[in-house]
């Protein structure tokens, strides 16, 4: 598993375990090679300790965080844990409903985290938390112009994914189903189409409920998976984090191993010839 990322180096040119291990299987994202294809969100954990144990068990190197007003009473912070583990904190613009808010939040994040990477989220409504395509594209354009490395949380519309890619996003991160719904991948066909036409990495973000969802995402050809609720709110977050890690690795390996085709009828694996005639 990827060695701990060297925490002294500034966020910008952190030594990538992928590169350091010369990992031909490395996960290419944002012009760097990472050792783990699982990106974990820090939202929803019952405690920082539970979050820390789960992050370690997940093997994730990229961990998402948000920005909120300072709470003077808060004890400890997600960022301290992430820095302590030598992981890469990827800020998001969760909670933004307009391009303007998202751009501002990204600028704040650049100050707060000293990185120009941003998980861009621009939401359309608070029941589905689906992305607002128009605002998302607008925000992406502006942030790319300002030199951000933009990783947009998008829906599973292949056309929007292509527009985001053409605008210069570093990846496209289509949802499988609503954030925190645990419904897995509702439309695997669209995800496949996005994967087919993508010239940037595709990371399935949102809706993963259980490891088989994560494995399916990788088997469909996604380059990585981003999940949070399915681990944070599991009965045993640490054990679920480990399961997700194995699922992403298994799915990726399966994709490269080349599965057998699906058929309606059977094809026995035991030879028929040489069957004894037992009277």
């Amino acid at each position, binding site marked *: 598993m990827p060695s701990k990322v060297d925490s002294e180096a500034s966020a910008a040119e952190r030594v990538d375990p992928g590169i350091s291990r010369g990992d031909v299987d490395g996960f290419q994202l944002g012009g760097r090679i990472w050792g783990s294809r699982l990106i974990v*969100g*820090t*939202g*929803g*954990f019952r405690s*920082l300790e539970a*979050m820390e144990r789960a992050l370690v068990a997940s093997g994730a190197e990229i961990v*998402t*965080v*948000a*920005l*909120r*007003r*300072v*709470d*003077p*009473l*808060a004890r400890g*912070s*997600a*960022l*301290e844990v992430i*820095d302590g583990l030598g992981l890469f*904190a990827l*800020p*998001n613009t*969760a909670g933004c409903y307009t391009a303007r808010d998202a751009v*501002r939040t990204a*600028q*704040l*994040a*650049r*100050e*707060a*985290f*000293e990185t120009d990477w941003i998980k861009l989220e621009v939401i359309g409504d608070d029941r589905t938390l689906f992305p607002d395509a128009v605002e998302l594209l607008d925000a992406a354009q502006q942030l790319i112009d300002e030199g951000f490395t933009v990783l947009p949380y998008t829906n599973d519309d292949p056309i929007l994914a292509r527009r985001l890619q053409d605008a210069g996003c570093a990846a496209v991160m289509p949802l499988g189903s609503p*954030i*925190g719904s645990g419904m897995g991948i509702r439309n695997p066909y669209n995800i496949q189409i996005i994967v087919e036409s993508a010239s940037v990495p595709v990371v399935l973000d949102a809706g993963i409920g259980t490891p088989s969802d994560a494995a399916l995402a990788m088997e469909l050809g996604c380059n990585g998976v981003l999940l*949070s*609720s399915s681990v944070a709110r599991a009965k045993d977050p640490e054990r679920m984090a480990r399961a997700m890690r194995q699922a992403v690795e298994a799915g990726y390996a399966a994709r490269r191993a080349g599965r057998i085709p699906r058929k309606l009828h059977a094809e026995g694996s035991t030879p028929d010839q040489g069957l004894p005639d037992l009277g």
Partner: protein
Amino acid sequence: MTIELNGRTVELSPGATVADAVIEAGADRDSRGVAVAVDGQVIRRVDWGKTKLRSDQSVEVVRAVQGG
């Protein structure tokens, strides 16, 4: 002078800077993960000490929290 700090009306001494507002908000200056916007404009960390605040400005001081 009075400003709006994270949604609360707060009294600051005249000549107070963004850096003072950060401390007032409960974050220490050099803690990682802190960022500030004044009237919607992001103030670069390096400018916190040099940027004087004016009455009725709205200051938002944010910090990293767990997020999906």
